[in-house]
């Protein structure tokens, strides 16, 4: 540690510091950007609210399904949340595993190539994932679903296997593949930034490689992993085309391996083109609900990260 002496600056006697044009420019530019994003968000929220109002206030029997907007939207909410959560639960361990492999196990060159391939996965359009999921992946899952039905059929989640494989479970698995790159990329970056001081501290205590990762790398990277997971969850919550193509939607059911259920984005994408009047308003109101869910998820993630801020290592 060498301290470079900073040249002493003469303090002006007046209290007002000099504003340099460059500083002024950048501070106003950043304030401007921050304002624009907030205004955009507020604008979206207001638009959704105004357009959604007719559906929210319509008599129950005029809304699709005839049970009011709440009755219409809650199965979609459950479908959206279940699909996204399953995707997150499936993707996160794999993503963390890949990230650890790339950052700590693979030889540098191999790690970089794998990282590159994973990043490439993020560039695949969701329609392609949808087509692949529907035509290639779904039929191959049918035997698995049949096995689940036979052996775990007493659990309502696996009650009745689909013959086409186009189920919420399949959609979730494809969503997991889609959000894998983003969770992997974020995790890999934070793992790579683990201070070698902490890694060496663990190794010097006689930690094996895995123990070193457990004591130094994972705790340090946890906020980043949570952040990446939330980005992934956000994408899963909002994914439209892949779900719309893969899933054979229908009425709500707890059965994850049969046709039925739908997610909010897919419901909107499917029906928006033909929607008019109250139906349009219903779809926009569903969009508003999705907006609120996403907001809640992000606040929750922030809360989790902040809760351990004292131990974050940002010293």
């Amino acid at each position, binding site marked *: 540690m060498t301290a470079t002496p900073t040249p002493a600056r003469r303090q002006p006697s007046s209290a007002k510091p000099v504003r340099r044009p460059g500083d002024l420019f950048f501070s106003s530019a950043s304030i401007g950007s921050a304002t624009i994003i907030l205004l955009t968000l507020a604008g979206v929220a207001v638009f959704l609210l105004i357009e959604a109002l007719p559906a929210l206030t319509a008599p129950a029997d005029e809304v699709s399904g005839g049970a009011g907007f709440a009755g219409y939207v809650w199965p979609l909410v459950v479908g959206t949340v279940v699909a996204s959560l399953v995707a997150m639960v499936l993707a996160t361990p794999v993503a963390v595993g890949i990230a650890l492999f790339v950052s700590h196990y693979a030889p540098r060159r191999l790690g970089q190539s794998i990282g590159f391939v994973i990043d490439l996965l993020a560039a695949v359009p969701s329609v392609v994932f949808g087509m692949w999921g529907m035509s290639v992946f779904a039929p191959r899952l049918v035997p698995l679903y049949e096995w689940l039905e036979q052996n775990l059929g007493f659990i309502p989640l696996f009650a009745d296997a689909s013959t086409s494989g186009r189920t919420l479970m399949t959609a979730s698995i494809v969503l997991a593949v889609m959000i894998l790159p983003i969770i992997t990329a974020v995790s890999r970056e934070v793992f790579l930034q683990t201070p070698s001081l902490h890694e*060496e501290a663990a190794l010097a*205590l006689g930690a094996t490689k895995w123990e070193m990762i457990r004591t130094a790398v994972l705790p340090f990277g946890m906020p980043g992993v949570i952040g990446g997971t939330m980005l992934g969850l956000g994408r899963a919550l909002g994914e439209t085309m892949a779900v719309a193509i893969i899933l054979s939607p229908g009425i709500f059911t707890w059965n994850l391996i049969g046709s039925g259920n739908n997610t909010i984005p897919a419901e909107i994408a499917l029906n928006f083109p033909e929607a008019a009047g109250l139906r349009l308003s219903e779809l926009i109101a569903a969009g508003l609900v999705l907006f609120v869910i996403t907001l809640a998820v992000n606040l929750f993630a922030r809360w989790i990260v902040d809760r351990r801020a004292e131990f974050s290592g940002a*010293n």
Partner: protein
Amino acid sequence: MSKRIDVNDLDIYYGDFHAVKDVTMTIEPRSVTAFIGPSGCGKSTFLRTLNRMHEVIPGARVDGEVLIDGQNLYAKGVDPVDVRRQVGMVFQRPNPFPTMSIKENVLAGVRLNSKRMSGKAADELAERALRGANLWNEVKDRLDKPGAGLSGGQQQRLCIARAIAIQPEVILMDEPCSALDPISTLAIEDLISDLKTDYTVVIVTHNMQQAARVSDKTGFFNLKATGQPGELVEYDSTQTIFNNPREKATEDYISGRFG
């Protein structure tokens, strides 16, 4: 608990680069041995070969042997993980685990050995290690607070507590005071003097006064020119090295005529 170290004809390489040449020395148990020398002379590199921490850097390898009570660290089938459990290490900058409390930090090494410990045993061990590191009185009321919240000197003593909690034979210290203020440095130096009653302590330092104050024996490392491997120029009792060195290079370095 403390053991003798014999180093025989040790050469250290980073890939093709010959970093340290042909070191042979004996480090006595229950003593403090200091390594001094200019930057880049290989003293820290050499220190790290005593618990195989140099292997963390890809491409690092050694020729020769390091015997701890007659056991070669580099014999076939020796697991570096076991070596490091015997030979603890304290680093240049304090590095408590940021996500752990003070107590968790102290117990981190013990937990790694995957021993199940009762809460009472853990409390006792933490207290013993913290007392051993002269830190107990300062932190006993905030054991559950993050270790990273301590001052630099306290953090470094926490790291020493963490190292001695696993009851090693040898403690290596790589410039443990270079990031600390003078008062914290003094506290660590006092601690080093205490530690030698139980452990073999090896310390690398830039600060010659520190070497003179704390060590029993001193080794002077130097390199003839940039790109040449570092070598052990002289190794003797601290008294001799500072007052009556055998080599001209040592005398120049000690008296500040180096470079």
